[in-house]
């Protein structure tokens, strides 16, 4: 990397006494491996120009050599890659925006093998083939070639920069902010608005995409405000704003999107300009600002002239050359030509001339330009060619001459130049206004689209609103600031002297009209010429939206900031319609490209999504548990001991539960406390089961349906008292079951006196399951009689455990063994778990995970909603008819259950499946057929929903949904698999302890 100390100040094109960077630190940087010198305050563009470098890129389609068009964010050409390190390689950075830092490494793009000699430039010679719409026409035949040949080749050749391959190591931040007034743009009108609004004490945010405030005052040498030159006044104004508590000034911050209800998206580039950014400081910060009022002071963007070969390096906007001279102290050439359709070119020529740069000629398409500026230029001895046009340029890697001709034709003259400045006028930046859904209106006399009908509480001021002088912009800005805060402020900044702008033309210049076959570029970034637009119209495109898509005009990353109006005017001319009748394409966010990093901001790595862990997670980790993701939860899947694979661990865990006992972390189960005098009535309505007669202290397995009669969720519900139920739901179903209940309570049953509270995370749940479960808990519970007589299967007690820890103790089972579920307040979960573990060790217990839990419940045929049901399964289909209260007249889903399709024969019903070979374990999801010899495609009559090896049964077990399954007991069905057909026998879904004696101990 280059360093500052060894660099000499190479000022080949710096002009002594010009610009504002005198005395700034010298910086070294490289471009395509070549080392250059710049100074603090430069952009990459100004630093390259200071070194006489204009050639910086190759165009997208024709690979034509390109230089800098602008000095700002509208830049279409000068896109480079900035490489900080192996991971941080940013493509398509506008060199006109990138601030220089010491050691900056930039590379050109879209060229091979080198920028000066690019093989792809052959496209330029074969260019008739690449005319408008060529993608749609050229690559249509033969049919197969698109996917195999054309698309891969085009993708390889197209595009500009190369995306980095490594993960982005930078950090990004986000901030929501609210303010009374948001001002976008800190040029003279934005600053005036901020000064007025700030005085009121209300909250003001002022943002600007540039590193400093000032806007056009950066180059307007003719401005004077409050007795100071414009730029100095602007910096002083910003300083006074910064000193206020109620004002936030955000520079290097682009307002990129204007959304509903005055929500404006800003992106602040925090470290992009630093040589050694601290990795903990965010690279960028996304601001989401909700403003009561928005003042848009976005300024205007200068347009180029559309003429033959107007894209050679060295040809740029007038305002760009002026910025490079007046701000950066850089002369863009030594012998400069000017081509213009308005007055703005004259002060540039005057500034350059006064700085010692030769102005070869001003070519003005106006027949009689007359103003003080024109006179001043003339008096400085500058040649003015009025009523003439530029019909072409020469120079391969840099412009070397322009061809000047009368508009009406006649003899042409070649004028040698090394830079050409052009201006066809100014386009008000109505992008954000349009994004706010405001309607623009075409102003015929000035050929501009201006803000028309507002859709949100915002106002446009200054050049983006059509103001044509410094006076007017400051007036508009200040008035808008006052109005926004409903106050009258006395101290309006006084404009002593200011420049004006306005006038100009749209479309192709004389000499580049329809009769000429030339490359007069409209859109530099997408290589769209005037000819392409005309061709689009001739081929039948009538709407500007179609012209845009056919030609790709305005569809590059610069979104046509310099090209849209020219394209529109050319289309209108060919269509012979007024411009507004052809329409204007829609402005969309983002105004300039926004990084994915800033949009993602904090949401990466561990913050990509919350990871939920139970109170016992740490213990489980220490025991070597393998975890599985269940929604956002981490759940212990199995606990392998030394030398065990998953299969061995699960087999052991399953055996241990049925021989002694196992403990299981069930904390993730959804839990809802239902409280109120109508709690039982509510339960009756939400579940299929009867609840009214369930005694306090008893539990019931409940099934919840959707309105259509299909199973929605299930779980064990304990009645704690007449008015209080403790409901459990599936882990994954917890939030939606709560919403489902709340929805019905508020919309269908608002008359019920009952409330719902989620208590999922209040209680840690430790399931203790197995023949020894009661023995283990016996010594731990403080004041609960857990004998079979006092606390039978499906009962619940409140009391304490482990010396005072409150518990809701459930006697219930999801294993078919005698079992308990110990609910304790979450912060005590781990301590109680450890106490149970210690006690359990005396009985050879194990901790078991979700896999063993699944196997154990399948051995008993207990369903898992979402695994054995798929949203089309009724309680009847699942063999759970018994859970429907036969005497009930209403519950959610009761009418759905009587629909003809739901009671028709042949429904898929949940059955057990025994493979003929007990060692064969079916694949979950495998399809089931009746006759395996039928032709393919076979008729599928069902599928496997659950399938495991059961160590307890010594064979594989499975369940599946099979058409008419209940009537097929004992039948042999077939499961075709890639390596053969598996025979299965249909059976009841119950594989262990068929009589259910173990539940009761």
């Amino acid at each position, binding site marked *: 990397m280059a360093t500052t100390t060894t660099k000499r100040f190479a000022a080949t094109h710096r002009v002594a006494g010009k610009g504002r960077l005198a005395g700034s630190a010298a910086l070294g940087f490289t471009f395509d491996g070549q080392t250059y010198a710049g100074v603090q305050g430069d952009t990459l563009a100004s630093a390259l120009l200071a070194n006489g470098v204009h050639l910086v890129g190759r165009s997208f389609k024709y690979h034509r050599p390109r230089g800098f068009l602008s000095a700002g964010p509208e830049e279409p050409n000068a896109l480079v890659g900035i490489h900080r390190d192996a991971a941080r390689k940013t493509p398509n950075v506008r060199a006109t925006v990138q601030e220089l830092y010491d050691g900056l490494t930039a590379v050109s793009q879209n060229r091979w093998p080198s920028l000066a000699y690019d093989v792809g430039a052959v496209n330029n010679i074969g260019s008739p083939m690449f005319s408008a719409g060529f993608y749609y026409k050229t690559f249509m035949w033969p049919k197969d070639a698109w996917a195999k040949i054309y698309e891969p080749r085009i993708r390889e050749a197209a595009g500009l920069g190369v995306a980095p391959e490594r993960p982005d190591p930078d950090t990004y*931040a986000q901030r929501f902010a609210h303010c009374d007034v948001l001002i976008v743009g800190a040029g003279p009108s934005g600053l005036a608005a901020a000064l007025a609004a700030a005085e009121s004490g209300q909250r003001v945010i002022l943002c600007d995409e540039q590193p400093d405030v000032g806007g056009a005052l950066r180059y307007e040498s003719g401005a004077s405000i409050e007795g100071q030159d414009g730029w100095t006044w602007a910096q002083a104004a910003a300083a006074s704003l910064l000193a206020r508590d109620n004002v936030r000034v955000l520079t290097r911050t682009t307002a990129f999107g204007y959304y509903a209800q005055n929500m404006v998206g800003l992106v602040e580039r925090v470290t992009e300009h630093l040589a050694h950014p601290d990795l903990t400081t965010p690279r960028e910060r996304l601001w989401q600002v909700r403003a009561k009022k928005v003042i848009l002071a976005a300024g205007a963007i200068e347009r180029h002239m559309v003429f033959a070969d107007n894209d050679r390096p060295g040809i740029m906007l007038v305002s760009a050359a002026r910025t490079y001279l007046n701000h950066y102290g850089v002369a863009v050439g030594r012998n400069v030509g000017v081509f213009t359709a308005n007055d703005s070119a004259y002060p540039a020529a005057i500034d350059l001339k006064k700085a010692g740069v030769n102005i070869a000629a001003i070519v003005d398409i106006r027949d009689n330009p007359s103003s003080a500026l024109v006179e001043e230029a003339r008096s400085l001895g500058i040649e003015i060619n009025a009523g003439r046009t530029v019909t072409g340029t020469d120079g391969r890697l840099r412009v070397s001459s322009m061809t000047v001709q009368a508009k009406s034709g006649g003899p042409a003259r070649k004028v040698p130049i090394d830079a050409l400045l052009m201006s066809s006028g100014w386009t008000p930046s109505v992008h954000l206004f349009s994004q706010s859904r405001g309607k623009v209106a075409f102003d015929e006399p000035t050929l501009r689209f201006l803000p028309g009908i507002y859709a949100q509480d915002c106002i446009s001021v200054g050049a983006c609103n059509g103001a044509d002088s410094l006076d007017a912009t400051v007036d508009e800005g200040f008035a808008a600031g006052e109005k926004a805060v409903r106050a009258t402020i006395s101290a309006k900044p006084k404009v002593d002297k200011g420049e004006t702008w306005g006038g100009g033309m749209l479309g192709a210049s004389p000499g580049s009209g329809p009769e000429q076959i030339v490359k007069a570029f409209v859109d530099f970034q997408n290589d769209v010429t005037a000819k392409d637009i005309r061709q689009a119209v001739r081929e039948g495109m009538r709407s500007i939206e179609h012209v845009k898509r056919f030609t790709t005009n305005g569809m590059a990353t610069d979104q046509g900031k310099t090209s849209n109006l020219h394209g529109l005017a050319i289309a209108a001319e060919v269509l012979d319609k007024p411009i507004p009748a052809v329409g204007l394409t829609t402005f969309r966010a983002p105004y300039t490209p926004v990084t994915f990093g800033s949009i993602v901001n*904090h949401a990466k790595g561990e*913050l990509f999504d*919350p*990871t*939920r862990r139970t109170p016992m997670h740490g213990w489980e980790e220490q025991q070597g548990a393998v975890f599985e993701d269940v929604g956002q939860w981490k759940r212990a899947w199995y606990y392998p001991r030394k030398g065990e694979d998953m299969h061995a661990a699960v087999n052991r865990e399953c055996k241990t539960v049925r021989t002694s006992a196992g403990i299981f972390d069930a904390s993730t189960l959804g839990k809802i406390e239902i409280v109120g005098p109508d709690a039982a009535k509510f339960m009756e309505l939400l579940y299929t089961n009867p609840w009214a007669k369930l005694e306090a202290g008893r539990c019931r397995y409940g099934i919840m349906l959707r309105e259509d009669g299909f199973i929605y969720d299930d779980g064990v519900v304990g009645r704690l008292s007449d008015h209080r139920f403790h409901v459990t739901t599936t882990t994954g179903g917890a939030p939606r079951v709560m919403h489902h209940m709340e929805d019905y309570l508020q919309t269908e049953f608002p008359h019920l006196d009952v409330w719902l509270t989620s208590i999922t995370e*209040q209680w840690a749940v430790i399931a203790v399951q197995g023949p020894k479960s009661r023995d283990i808990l016996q010594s731990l519970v403080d004041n609960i009689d857990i004998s079979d007589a006092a606390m039978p299967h499906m009962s619940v007690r409140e009391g304490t455990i482990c*010396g005072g820890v409150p518990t809701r103790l459930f006697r219930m089972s999801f294993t078919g063994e005698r079992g308990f579920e110990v609910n304790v307040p*979450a*912060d005590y979960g781990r301590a109680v778990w450890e106490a149970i573990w210690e006690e359990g060790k005396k009985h050879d217990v194990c901790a078991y995970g979700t896999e063993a839990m699944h196997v154990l419940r399948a051995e008993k045929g207990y369903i898992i909603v979402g695994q054995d049901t798929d949203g089309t399964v009724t309680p009847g289909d699942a063999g759970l008819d018994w859970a429907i209260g036969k005497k009930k007249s209403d519950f959610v889903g009761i009418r759905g259950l009587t629909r003809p399709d739901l009671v028709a024969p042949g429904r898929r019903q949940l059955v057990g499946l025994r493979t003929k070979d007990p060692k064969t374990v079916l694949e979950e999801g495998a399809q089931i057929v009746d006759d395996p010899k039928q032709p393919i495609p076979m008729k599928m009559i069902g599928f496997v929903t659950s399938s495991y090896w059961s160590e307890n049964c010594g064979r594989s077990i499975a369940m599946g949904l099979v058409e008419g399954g209940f009537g097929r007991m004992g039948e042999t069905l077939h499961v075709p698999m890639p390596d053969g057909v598996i025979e299965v026998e249909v059976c009841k879904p119950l594989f262990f302890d068929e009589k259910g004696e173990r539940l009761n101990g």
Partner: protein
Amino acid sequence: MVEAITVKRRGALDHRLETINGVSLQPAKPARRVSLRAEPDGLAPLSKALGLDLPTKPKTSALADGRSALWLGPDEWLVIDESEDAEPLKDLAEVTVLHSAVDISHRNVAIIVSGSKAADVINAGCPQDLGLQAFPVGACSRTVLGKIEIVLLRTAPDTFRVECWRSFADYAFSYLSDAARGV
């Protein structure tokens, strides 16, 4: 009765404590919490039992003797009490008027965010207007922080209490740390 519990209590954020860019992130001490639901005509006896006036205006809270009641909805309050011997649930048990009181002491975890940039840190993930006028001391809101739901309470001009469900506390703390690094 105060629980005389001998087994170890473990919070979700034990040992986490950070000060970044002048903003301190600190787990709040254990508190009793009640989710209280009631109709308007029940407010008087419930307020009396709790020893504070249950607030009825959105985004407001009431504070008395270390006990706060946060308005979360027209019929919903979050009661938080950090005193050692407080038992708001027991206080409410005596009230006969229609209501629902559910113990959520362990469901929620709180993080105290304090420092001159505390609001900026929270605003990294929470879209609420945290200006002192819009969100004065005592203001509260059930809102979001990044991808999770939180209840936010301003306890001092530069101090906020961020309440979230226990299993989201790790995310909330990490989010606030990341945000503090980025202010």
